[in-house]
């Protein structure tokens, strides 16, 4: 009897590991360290783990596509590091990648991790290409090997404010952010721009990262009755409970969010409460051959997340430059990076002098459980 009890206990605890062992780790057997080592940096654990894994999978998909083309320079290996969206861990991971002789790092997700991690990486002449960090400062520090494939928050806030004034004709706005370099930076931009565009800011509240209960803030928003409620949170998993609670509270304001909450997971979690939510996101034409190629390569990792395609394009861009340069010598690759001009999965890839690749924010709306292009700030017209 006693034995049986012990056995049962062991079995119960084992239920926490068994399913885990069944899954094969995607990490390739690191048999050969020859060729090119690319690092990926992003939160693989913790509350933003979904976004970090999207980035890692995007890099993996790109490596798979490019590997046959690399010839004698290959094969390309991935060293995936976890920064947990934490500045200290990001720096530690960056140092590890330097030791692993990575020549380029794709990442990170959080601007607050990208900026500190870039210091040692760039000093070691390692390329850092962020697929997701939109804070302006990322490329504003005169760093020669810092590139960005996504857009910038100053452009994003312009698009958002233009949408509120020109299309929604709103007069009042209430802002909430969760105090990260990215989310608060963007919310502050919106507040400044709104004031100068004649939008009245009724309030600007901050919540804590990873909060799930927003009832207190939402009670305030409900009482203020703004035309637009601007939600700037660090990712979709924080935004979903907020949307659910907005629905439950019966807040009638229009909701405008930003690129970080873009994720299939948002709709999956918030369901009908996600309907009608607007958000700013880089324009992606999903009918192009480049996107199709990406979608095929990515299929085995599930549905692409917000930054999967950007991570994929960042990796492709670097590998194309390496191929053109014929070596991984940073100077030569940099010269080739600046010459790149091709259609990527997410956007047209052409890097500028400061490392940016331009913003192309449009307004999307969640309609019938799908992200749909809605309004183009360039010409002020609705998408057909």
């Amino acid at each position, binding site marked *: 009897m006693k034995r049986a*009890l*012990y056995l*049962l*206990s*062991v079995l*119960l*605890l084992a*239920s*926490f*590991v*068994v*399913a*885990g062992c069944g*899954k094969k780790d995607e990490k390739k057997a690191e048999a050969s360290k020859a060729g090119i080592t690319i690092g990926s940096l992003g939160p*693989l*654990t*913790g*509350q933003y*783990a*979904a976004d970090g*894994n999207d980035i890692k999978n995007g890099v993996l998909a790109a490596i798979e596509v490019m590997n046959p083309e690399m010839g004698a320079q290959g094969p390309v290996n991935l060293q995936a590091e976890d920064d947990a969206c934490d500045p200290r861990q990001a720096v530690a991971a960056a140092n590890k990648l330097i030791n692993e002789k990575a020549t380029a790092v794709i990442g990170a997700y959080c601007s607050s991790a990208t900026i500190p991690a870039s210091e040692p990486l760039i000093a070691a002449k390692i390329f850092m290409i962020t697929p997701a960090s939109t804070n302006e400062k990322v490329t504003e520090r005169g760093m020669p090997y810092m590139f960005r494939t996504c857009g910038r928050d100053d452009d994003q806030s312009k698009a958002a404010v233009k949408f509120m004034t020109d299309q929604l004709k709103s007069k009042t706005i209430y802002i909430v952010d969760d*105090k990260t370099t990215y989310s608060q930076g963007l919310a502050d931009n919106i507040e400044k721009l709104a004031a100068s565009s004649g939008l009245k800011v009724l309030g600007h*509240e*901050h*919540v*804590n990262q*990873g*909060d*799930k*209960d*927003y*009832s*207190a*803030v939402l*009670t*305030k928003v*409900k*009482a203020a009755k703004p035309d637009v409620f601007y939600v700037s949170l660090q990712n979709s*998993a924080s935004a*979903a*409970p907020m949307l*659910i*609670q907005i629905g*439950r*509270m*019966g807040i009638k304001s229009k909701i405008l969010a930003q690129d970080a909450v873009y994720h299939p*997971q948002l709709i*999956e*979690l*918030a*369901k*009908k*409460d996600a309907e009608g939510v607007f958000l700013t996101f880089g324009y992606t034409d999903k009918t192009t051959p480049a996107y199709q190629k990406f979608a095929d390569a990515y299929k085995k990792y599930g549905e692409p997340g917000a930054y999967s395609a950007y991570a994929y394009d960042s990796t492709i861009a670097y590998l194309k430059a390496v191929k053109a340069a014929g070596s991984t010598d940073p100077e030569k690759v940099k010269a080739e990076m600046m010459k790149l001009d091709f259609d990527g999965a997410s956007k047209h890839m052409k890097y500028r002098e400061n490392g940016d690749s331009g913003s192309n924010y449009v307004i999307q709306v969640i309609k019938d459980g799908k992200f749909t292009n809605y309004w183009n700030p360039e010409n002020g017209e609705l998408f057909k």
Partner: protein
Amino acid sequence: MDFFFQQLVNGITLGGVYALVALGYTMVYGIIQLINFAHGEIFAAGGYMGVILISWLFAQGYPPFLCLGVALLLAMGYCALLAMALEKLAYKPLRQSSRLSVLLSALGMSIFLQNGLMLTQGVYDRAYPGEMVQGGFEVGTVMISYMQIIIVAVTVLLLVALNLLVFKTRIGKAMRATAQDKTMSGLVGINSGRIISITFAIGAALAAAAGIMVGLYYGSVRYDMGFVPGIKAFSAAVLGGIGNITGAMLGGLIIGMIEVFAAGYISSEYKDVFAFIILIAVLYFMPTGIMGENVDDTRV
């Protein structure tokens, strides 16, 4: 004034959940003086068990309340067994060693269970079926959702049941006796090992119920969902006087209320700061917590 009542409703909901989790900390501490760090993970495991069971039952077309009831009972049972297993494997062999070893073992189990959840269930959030409990009603402008009513109702039900169990049954009496003096209660024929095991099971069952309700309320669960509520509930247990059941309930409600009112009247950024300032202030003036004095008969 409406604002005040709205926050009051929100605070009671949140406080009820903290109270349920806090009970597990306080009961275990009361009986073997161990801070069971893995308790937050039991809460998360309950949330996951709930999402798995409810999704499955709901897909079979059973009515929502039946799904909820069955899932609640099964998840509570599973977590009770899990906690008993945990106690048997990780804590019992260390009963004669120093308290620090058991504490480290608890920390280790917490990390083990959290990572186990991450590996088996994935890093992405899992959604509860959204059509379960919809809507609510308005009293004046105060919005009360049906989900909040369910949470409060289940919490009250469980708290009453627990009180009856501890103060009116033989097992409860044995639990209180073991908490007071393990050796002496052993001498009068109480199997203290079994009582400790039962205490773990009860605490875990309550945490599992809380996990399911939190999952339903916020719409999703994640493998690390146990960490923050675990810390808050532990603080609630300390605030109420650790080892004291009524204290844990009170502490949970107080922490929930402070959080919501600090967020509502001061700022959301400071809600945790205020919760912990109050905690420190209370402990400064009442080092044993609010209900910590009469440890003799109410303690488990």
